[in-house]
């Protein structure tokens, strides 16, 4: 059986990749995808913890499902915002969206 730590390390790596995406990508969509990666890393954590620590309770699984749902809602809102901005500015590059500052 694969040890729990493998999953945790994998999840952490995935989370870091998502984090890197948020910090490094200039495209707003890509940033959004980074956030989704982070959430999915969390899901792996949740399921792994459920499987290894509380296999008899479904809290971990339920939480994972809820994270999916929330992520979906976020993506819906996020994409709508991005589209709205693209219509007005013709760009989805986050660094170009800097009217509000200082």
């Amino acid at each position, binding site marked *: 059986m694969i040890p729990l730590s493998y999953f945790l390390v994998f999840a952490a790596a995935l989370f870091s990749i998502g*984090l890197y995406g*948020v*910090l*490094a990508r*200039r495209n707003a969509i890509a*940033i959004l995808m980074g956030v989704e990666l982070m959430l999915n890393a969390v899901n792996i954590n949740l399921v792994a913890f459920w499987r290894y620590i509380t296999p008899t309770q479904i809290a971990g699984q339920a939480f994972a499902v809820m994270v999916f749902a929330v992520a979906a809602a976020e993506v819906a809102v996020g994409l709508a915002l991005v589209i709205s901005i693209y219509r007005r500015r013709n760009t989805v590059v*986050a*660094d170009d*969206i*800097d*009217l*509000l*500052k*200082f």
Partner: protein
Amino acid sequence: MIFSEVTSAGAQFFQWVPLILAFPLAGLLINMFFGGRLPEKVIGIVGSSAVVLTFVVAVLQAISLVGHPEGAVVPLADWIHIGELHLRWAIQVDTLSVTMMLVVSGVGSLIHIYAIGYMHEDVRHNGDPGRYQRFFVFFNLFILAMMVLVSADNYLMLFVGWEGVGLCSYLLIGFWYDKGEGGIGNAMAAKKAFVTNRVGDFGFLLAAFTMFGAFRSFEFESVFRQAPEVAAIIPSAIMFITLFMLLGVTGKSAQLPLFVWLPDAMAGPTPVSALIHAATMVTAGVYLVARSYPLYSLVPEAQFWVTMVGALTALFSATIAVGQFDIKKVLAYSTISQLGFMVAAVGMGATVAGMFHLVTHAFFKALLFLSAGSVILGLEQGHHHVEHDPVLRKKAKNLHHFDPQDMRNMGGLRTRMPITFWVFTIGGLALAGIFPLAGFWSKDEILLEANHLYSWAYIILSIAAFFTAFYVGRQLLMVFFGEPRTEPAAHAKESPPVMTVPLMILAGLSALGGLLNLPGIHTFGHWLEHTLEAATHGEAAEVAAEVGAEAAQAGALGFDLGIAAISTALAVVALGLAWYLYDRRYKQMLDIPPAKRPDDPLRSILGPVFTGMERKWWVDELYWAVLLNPYIALSKFLAQVIDWRFWHDWFHDVVIAGGFKWITRLTAVRIDLGGIDAIANGLATVTQGLAQQMRRLQTGYVRNYALSVFVGVVIILGYLILR
């Protein structure tokens, strides 16, 4: 039979010992609050009977001690509880303290009775009868303080008495504070005594502090018990304690270098000189060293210094006494000299000899002072008589500047004041150490011990003894023999019985005091042994064994005929020399016309040396030049230059007042307008600048914001993981 019954039951008398404090206290309170309404006689009787009753209590203690020589400690009250310091008022009853009680209250009783008569005349002549009451209040207060001093069971209570007697000394020296040279001479003398004693007290206090630091206690019993251990651990502690204590002793007992106050203290009434400045208070230093014998026995260096101080003082002031003309000054220097004998004795460890001399000296020196007082009163009465007799008045010269204490104004009083003459002669011969009077035995014992322990001290003391006999002879001859040199002397009258009876009792004591400690019997030695051995018993005994054995051996030396013969021979030769000079030579000098005639035969022989003796070897002048004048100059400098010119004129007026004006102007113009506003504006500008800088962090780039969040995450998680 009765005596043995009393002594066996006598332990209960120990419980009465607080009365030695209660009686003088009652006497002084009665006289203080009601003395104003009481007649003079009653005041005197109340004051005297308080002391007589004290003496009775002291005698009862002595009787009890015969049966119970170990004595007792009678607690009175708790005093101080601070941290580890636990002090109580408690009375130490042992042979040493009771000896002092007996001397103080016994001699004190006689002097009190004498003072009833003397002070009656004194206040009459000095013109302020109201002070009669005050005198007895102070006198009883002195007895009280002295009793506290000698009955203390710890050093701090002893110090209370020590300060108390100092206060009484000050009050009584300045009793005629409006008299004396320039109207303030007596007050100055009192001040001098007080200040000089403060120097000594400073030493006492340092000793006490060191003692508490080393022993964590002030109680005799505890200190003496721990002394050998402490001496083994911190040898310097005992050294410091004993040497600082020596400084206290030199102040209170008027030893070199602090003796200068005692001659001036003669400004007080003669009973004061007799009681305080001859018989009792000044011996407090001797008592202190005797009491602290267990400490001194541990440090031979300190013993050496004490002995040295005593011996040198004895010789030094004996030479000065030779050159004095004031009848009381001679006795004052004699007292210093005799105190030197005692201090030397207790210093070298001959405690018994020292205490013995203390007792006999109390007898004969009190006698001498009181007799001198009688002489002075006689002369004053003669002066009074002459002043009111128109015939005699014309014959006499310099009546307004007549000094009743100057021996050059006396002479021939032998026939006019026979009782005074005889008692004075007994006292004088006792002082000179003529067999078989009291002084002979006690001085001989000191010389015997000195010969055994410190031969150089023996030589010094023997020379001092020679001078002692010489100035005694000189005084006797100048005062009582020959023809009266002045009209008042010719008309002097004998004093009343209230004064002469105490004189006769004291004369008896001075003659027979030697019986206390006759060689071979050593009554007094065995009496004191109880206390001295108890204090050094146990562990202390081992360390003190060497010294103690020596001392004990010396105490048992008995009687050395050779030394007695030498000292007697010296005394007789000195008296003979005095007779030659002041009788034969003086009569020859009468041929010389008065204008060229020297006032003292010795002056023509010794010249400047005699002047040195007369001027106390210029010690006062030396102190003035070395200490007082620089001190006064410094004070003046501080007062006039530093305080007045610098502090007041410059600092207050220029710096503070001017500075204040300057600062207000500065505050208003520069600080408030230019400074506060500027600082506030500056701070605001700085903050604003900071704000502007920080504002620039807000780039508007969303990824920077995410980076900021990420940095926060890294720092927080880093902290949590690495802590």
